[in-house]
Every structure is written in structure tokens, then in C-alpha cells.
């Protein structure tokens, strides 16, 4: 976990979002001073303008006002681990702005935990709780007119061997929010980030929490198709819009398509169709295929086979999350293919490529990759062996459109690393949400209007032109990239100008009932 340093307000790390949770304590007495404090608190919140998704941070004031009060709220700070210093620094700047300030410090850390206000049974706190609940309710229940903020629930894989994917999507998303001054489409944005730990049941529970308890306007974030398909019913059943920054299974493009589901990145098959087409241009005659045994894996090899005209000498589905590929590599060697095409995102790809090189297969067989196994998250750990490998993607860091140039520059400045395609997808998702919120002028209650605005997708994507198909999946170009020197001693992807697939949709749109 990065250590929080003392820093001024406007440079707070934006991937830590603090928010108030009005703890519903049983109301006891109503002491005027607490109520007055709550009202001041509300004014304070407006003053702070919800920057960086910070809704409310308050700090204790005037211990002497309550001689019999329990231990000071500073005791809360050790509970708030990791970010307490940033929060304390932030909080320290507040008393000069607005006394008397109440001590309810509440942080949602980037990985799934919300620290709640310590629930003490002193009358002061219960009255405060009531006051805060009313204040929060007053904020929330603003009727059918424009909402005062947009809430987004972000659930992604932030731990484990494939965490780099979720982390990048999150960082791209939050960068977009930050670059818009903590807003999306003109409304202050509150992004609730949680970790699904690569487990579908955990993702389901996080979805339930975000939708039912925190009442978010949009859900987004999931990396893996199996996790998304397990958690998606929570969103669809409660009529919450889900915008996928990554997973886009064929089922949701076709027979299961749903007006509440939007795929911002690509259809699952797309990169692999592009790779199959590229294999044709390279006149490859025999290919061995490897993918994990789950929906996206199935989609990937189906896509490759749809375009590839040569012979598939082997089709091996590995266990999702498998890390030791000794058996599969032995099979590949025995099959003697001309090329090997794999779809193994995240940690799976890193291990496979390392072991592939270790088994000496790189010499006689060409390794073809989709962008998922050839971006910075894999290049870093694998290293020099990646040089010269070809891969396909819808985006590359060297795209010259204005939006992308700005994105890459800001991302490198903020996070000190080159963005992967996952980061670009997170960024585009935030821009899409922002465009929709802007186009409905903040009236998020009017869901048909929001859906229409989302479908129109009037935003400047970092990939260039963006358009949705009738099934809410993108129609776009796909490019071939190759891994070359970045001039600074490292490796980076470089794209070829001519797209390998132009204005390409997906093969399932006919099965979708939406028109």
C-alpha cells in the first residue's frame, strides 16, 4: 500500500475517496448544538465542492465543550490505516474554515473497506447521528430534479496475480474524474472502489452493497467475464446501469443483450478476430490455441477461428487462474505448430510466456498474442523476451489523436508508468459516464434519457472515433501492434497505421433483440 504523505488539499491521491456514511443510530435527545453543527457541516460540504470525491471530512473541535465526553476522536485515526496521514493533513486545514466541526472521520479505502464512525452510545453522538442522517437524507432526497452528485460503484480485481488489470482500469477511471475536477458531466463524482479478489461471490456481495446500501447510479469495473456474469444480475434485477470497462461476453452481445448493459472496450471476440486475420496476412498455416476455460476464453478462440483460414492443430483450455503450464507446453512441442496463439490475461500470461521461453519453444514457433497478453503489465515482469512480438488491440499508447495524447501524458505524470489498454478503457468509461450525465443535465432519475445519452456516446475517446452498435457493443477499428524500444531502455507497443479490421462490430448482434 502506498504510504500517504502530507500534501496539500488539491493533490490528495484521488484513488482514496472519503465519504460520510450517516450511521443510523437510534435517536435519543436532540441537542441544538449538535444540530447546528450538522447544518454548518452541510455548508462546509458545499464549500469543499466535493473535490476528489471527498464528500465530508470533519475533525474534532473543542474537547472542553464536553467535559464528560469519551476519549477524543483522535483515537479514530489509528483505525483509519494507510491514509490517516493524508486525511489528518486534510482535516487539519478545516477548522480555520468552519468551527465547530464534528468528529466523524470516515474513509473508504481503495480496496473495499469502509471505516465507520465509532458507534458510541453517548447522547451527543446519537443526536449527531440523527442530525447527520437527516442532513444526508435532505441531500439525497432532492426529488426528480437534477441530482447533486453522481455515484459510481467500482468493483474490480485489485489483488492477486492479475491485479494489475483492475488497478489500471481503476487508475484510468479515477484519472478522468480528477482531470474533470472531481466531477463527471458537471456533477461531483463519488466513486466507491471495492476489490472482488478474483472471486465471483465476493463481487456479488460488493455489487449488492453498492446498489442496495449505497444506492449508486452506475456500476462498473469488473475485469473478468465469469465474475461479471455472476454479479451482473444484481445490477440488472435492480435496474441499475452496468457499464463494462473490460469484460464483454458474447452472450451479452447476442441473445442475452440488455438495454442496461454497455460494453465500452470491445466485444470479447474482437482482438482475437483481428489476430486471426493478421495470421492470414502472415500466411501462417498451422496454429495451436490456448485460452482459459471460461466464457471469455471460449469467445476468444471462437473469434480467432472465425477469421483464421489455416489449420488449428490444437485447442487447449486451461483452468482459469492456472499458473504452471508445463503440461500444455509439452503438448505444444509435440504438436509442432507453426505458431502459437494464446489468450491468457494478467498473471496467467506472464507465467505462460516465461515458461514458453524457458521451454525453448520461442525459437521455432511464432508467438501471436492479443493485446491482453502483450501490454505493459506483462512486458514488465517478462522483460526482453517480449521484444518483437506482434499483438492486436483497439488502442495503442502511440495514437496521435488529441484525447489520447493528453491521456497518456497525464497518466504518466500522475502514476509514473505507461498506461496499458486497460487504463485507456477505464478512462473512456469515465468519459462516457460523464458525457451521459452532461447530456441529461444531471437528471439521473430519468433513466430512459440516461440510456439514450449513453447510447449516443458523444465523447472524445482515446481510441479515436467511438460508436455503439444496436447491442450496446462498440463498432471500431482494430490494429496490429509490435513491441519495440521506447528509447528509454524499456519496451512499449507501437501500432501500425492501417487497421487490420475496420469498422468492425461483432458476430452476435443479429441475435440481439434490441434495435
Amino acid at each position, binding site marked *: 500500500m502506498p504510504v500517504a504523505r502530507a500534501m496539500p488539499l488539491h493533490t490528495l491521491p484521488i484513488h482514496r475517496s472519503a465519504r460520510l456514511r450517516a450511521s443510523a443510530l437510534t435517536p435519543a435527545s436532540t441537542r441544538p448544538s449538535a444540530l447546528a453543527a450538522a447544518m454548518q457541516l452541510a455548508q462546509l460540504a458545499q464549500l469543499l465542492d466535493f473535490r476528489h470525491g471527498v464528500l465530508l471530512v470533519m475533525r474534532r473541535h473543542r474537547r472542553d465543550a464536553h467535559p464528560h465526553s469519551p476519549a477524543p476522536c483522535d483515537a479514530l485515526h489509528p483505525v483509519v490505516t494507510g491514509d490517516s496521514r493524508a486525511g489528518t493533513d486534510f482535516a487539519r486545514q478545516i477548522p480555520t474554515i468552519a468551527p465547530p466541526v464534528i468528529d466523524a472521520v470516515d474513509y473508504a479505502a481503495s480496496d473495499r473497506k469502509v471505516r465507520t464512525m465509532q458507534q458510541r452510545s453517548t447522547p451527543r453522538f446519537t443526536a449527531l447521528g440523527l442530525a447527520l442522517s437527516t442532513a444526508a437524507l435532505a441531500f439525497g432526497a432532492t426529488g426528480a430534479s437534477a441530482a447533486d452528485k453522481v455515484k459510481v460503484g467500482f468493483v474490480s480485481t485489485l489483488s492477486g496475480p492479475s*491485479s494489475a488489470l483492475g488497478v489500471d482500469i481503476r487508475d484510468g477511471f479515477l484519472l478522468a474524474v480528477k482531470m474533470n475536477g472531481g466531477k463527471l458531466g458537471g456533477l461531483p463524482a463519488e466513486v466507491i472502489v471495492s476489490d472482488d479478489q478474483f472471486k465471483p461471490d465476493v463481487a456479488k456481495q460488493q455489487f449488492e452493497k453498492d446498489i442496495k446500501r449505497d444506492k449508486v447510479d452506475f456500476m462498473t469495473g469488473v475485469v473478468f467475464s465469469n465474475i461479471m456474469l455472476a454479479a451482473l444480475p444484481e445490477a440488472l434485477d435492480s435496474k441499475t446501469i452496468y457499464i463494462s470497462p473490460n469484460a464483454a461476453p458474447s452472450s451479452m452481445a447476442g441473445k442475452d443483450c440488455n438495454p442496461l448493459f454497455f460494453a465500452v472496450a470491445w466485444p470479447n471476440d474482437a482482438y482475437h478476430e483481428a489476430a486471426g486475420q493478421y495470421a492470414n496476412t502472415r500466411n501462417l498455416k498451422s496454429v495451436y490455441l490456448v485460452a482459459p476455460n471460461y466464457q471469455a476464453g471460449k469467445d476468444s478462440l471462437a473469434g480467432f477461428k472465425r477469421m483464421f483460414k489455416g489449420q488449428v492443430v490444437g485447442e487447449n483450455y486451461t483452468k482459469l487462474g492456472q499458473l*504452471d503450464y508445463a*503440461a500444455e507446453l509439452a503438448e505444444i512441442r509435440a504438436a509442432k505448430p507453426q505458431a502459437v496463439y494464446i489468450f491468457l490475461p494478467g498473471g496467467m500470461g506472464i507465467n505462460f510466456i516465461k515458461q514458453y521461453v524457458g*521451454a525453448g519453444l520461442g525459437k521455432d514457433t511464432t508467438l501471436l498474442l492479443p493485446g491482453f497478453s502483450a501490454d505493459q503489465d506483462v512486458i514488465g515482469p517478462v522483460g526482453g523476451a517480449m521484444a518483437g512480438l506482434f499483438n492486436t488491440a483497439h488502442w495503442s499508447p502511440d495514437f496521435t489523436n488529441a484525447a489520447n495524447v493528453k491521456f497518456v501524458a497525464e497518466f504518466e505524470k500522475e502514476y509514473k508508468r505507461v498506461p496499458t489498454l486497460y487504463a485507456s478503457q477505464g478512462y473512456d468509461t469515465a468519459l462516457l459516464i460523464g458525457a451521459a450525465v452532461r447530456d441529461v443535465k444531471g437528471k439521473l432519475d430519468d433513466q430512459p434519457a440516461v440510456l439514450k445519452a449513453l447510447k449516443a456516446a458523444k465523447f472524445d475517446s482515446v481510441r479515436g472515433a467511438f460508436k455503439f452498435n444496436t447491442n450496446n457493443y462498440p463498432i471500431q477499428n482494430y490494429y496490429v501492434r509490435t513491441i519495440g524500444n521506447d528509447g528509454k531502455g524499456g519496451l512499449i507497443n507501437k501500432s501500425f497505421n492501417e487497421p487490420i479490421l475496420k469498422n468492425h462490430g461483432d458476430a452476435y448482434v443479429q441475435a440481439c433483440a434490441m434495435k
Partner: protein
Amino acid sequence: MPGVLILEQALNGLQFGLMLFLLAAGLTLVFGVMDMINLAHGSLYMVGAFVAAWLGALTGSFVLGVLGAVALTAVFGMVLEAGLLRTLYARDHLSQVLATFALILILNDGTKMVFGNDLPLSAPAALAGPVELLPGLIYPAYRLLIIGVGLALAVLLWLLVQKTRMGALVRAGASNREMATAMGTNIPRLFTAVFGIGAALCAVAGALLGPLLAVQVGMGENILILAFVVIVIGGIGSIRGALVGAILVGCIDTLGRTFLQHALRELLPPQWASAAGPAIASIAVYVFMAVVLAIKPQGLFPARG
């Protein structure tokens, strides 16, 4: 199926089996000598991997990382034994199961707090390439190292148990604990030493497997159950049994996986065949254990006379 493929898969099975042996050896000693079911054994394997990754990054040397991990994990294991696990020897198996399960939870989160959820660990660059063993049989150098280390440790352990005084005490304790105590063996120190050796072996397995798998919290849980299966097959308290059992389990799993996938691919669509093959191979391991228990309830090489 070509012969080279079978050979290569057999080597893979041997490699997997030998790593399993390292875990099973410590486990069978603890169980045989101290009559304790230790579910936290997999956590020691995880701790070993994490320490190796951390030290490797700190010193920049893979070898130093492994050696340091072995030393530190052994010490950690001995402290754990003397401090906590000692109270469990007298208890019934259920209490031991539950207490060591609690220990898994504590160690999992404790590791997360100290090291984070996962750490990178790479094989040394010198071993990152392949080696040609026979014409046509190319095998990764790193896996050969694992096989080498596994075999060397097996020999070392055999020497320890058969030829040294401490080994004699261990064998005595494994075959009849009460009698060994009556004969005057310093039981507490012996137990601590046995646990330390078990922890050290775990650390070697964790450090060596780290580059192939991923060093992450919870990595011990899956391999732990297989280690238990191995010691039940081999005979509780017997190192020889652990070795034979481990190699058998490793080969059944790896070779079974390959053969079944080939066979099933004729019958089922590839996604189904790829799912069913490994699953049936894993089931076969457990069926094998059940069969062994039915025929020879004490295992293949029982230590208890």
C-alpha cells in the same frame, strides 16, 4: 502419443511429485512423531515463498533468497511449535484441526499485513532457458533444478533418518511414542527440531515453486490437501512412504491429465474435454488413496510396527 511427450510429462510429474514430497515429509514426521494434524503446514510453505521473494528482491540473489527463507522459516516454525503448537499435542484431533485452521487464517492475513497480497519471484536468469537432455527431449533448466534439489533433499533426509542418532530417535518416536518417552528421549527438544526440519523443507518447496506459480496469500491451501493424501497413501510417519506416495500422486495427476485430455478430445468438445480431463485425474488421485486405504489401511510403508 509420441514418446517424447510421455517422457516430458513424466518429468513434469516427477518435478511436481518431488515438491509435494518436501511438504509431505515434514507433515508425516509431525504427524508420525507428535501425532498432530497440522493444517498450518501449507501456511509455512506460503511463508517460505514470501520470505524468499522478499529476500531475493532485497539481496538481488535468488540463491541467497532461498537460503535465507529456509533459515528464517525454520526459526519461525520452531518458535511457533514451542510457543503455540506444543499445547495441542495432548488434545484430540478435532481441537488440533480447528486450532491449526485458526492458524491458517492468522498466518494468511498476517502475511498480507507484512508483505502485501503477493510478491514477484523470478527464477535466476541463468536457468531461464531450456536444456536438451536427449535428442528431441528439451526440458526447462529450472525444472531440472527443482528435480535435482528434490532428489538431493530426499537422499539427505534418508541419511538423516537412517544414519544419525536424531534420526533414530525420530524413527523410535514415530513407531512408538510412549516407549520412546519411557526410554528417556528428550521429547520437547526432539519435537521442536522435527518441526523445524519440516518448516525448512516447506520453505524450500515454496521458494522453488514460487517462480513457476505465484507467490500469493492462500497458496498453501490447495497443495496442503494433496500433501495429506500423500502421507495417508505412503504411511503416516514414514519418509520413504512420503517419497513413493508423492511421486505416485504427482505422476497420476500429471500423466492422467494428459492422457485423459487426449482420450476425451475424441468424444467431447474441447472446452468440456479440457475441463473433464484434469478433474478426472484429480479424482483418480483420491480414488487411489481410497483403494490404498481399503487394501493396506496403514499405508504403503507403515512406520508403526
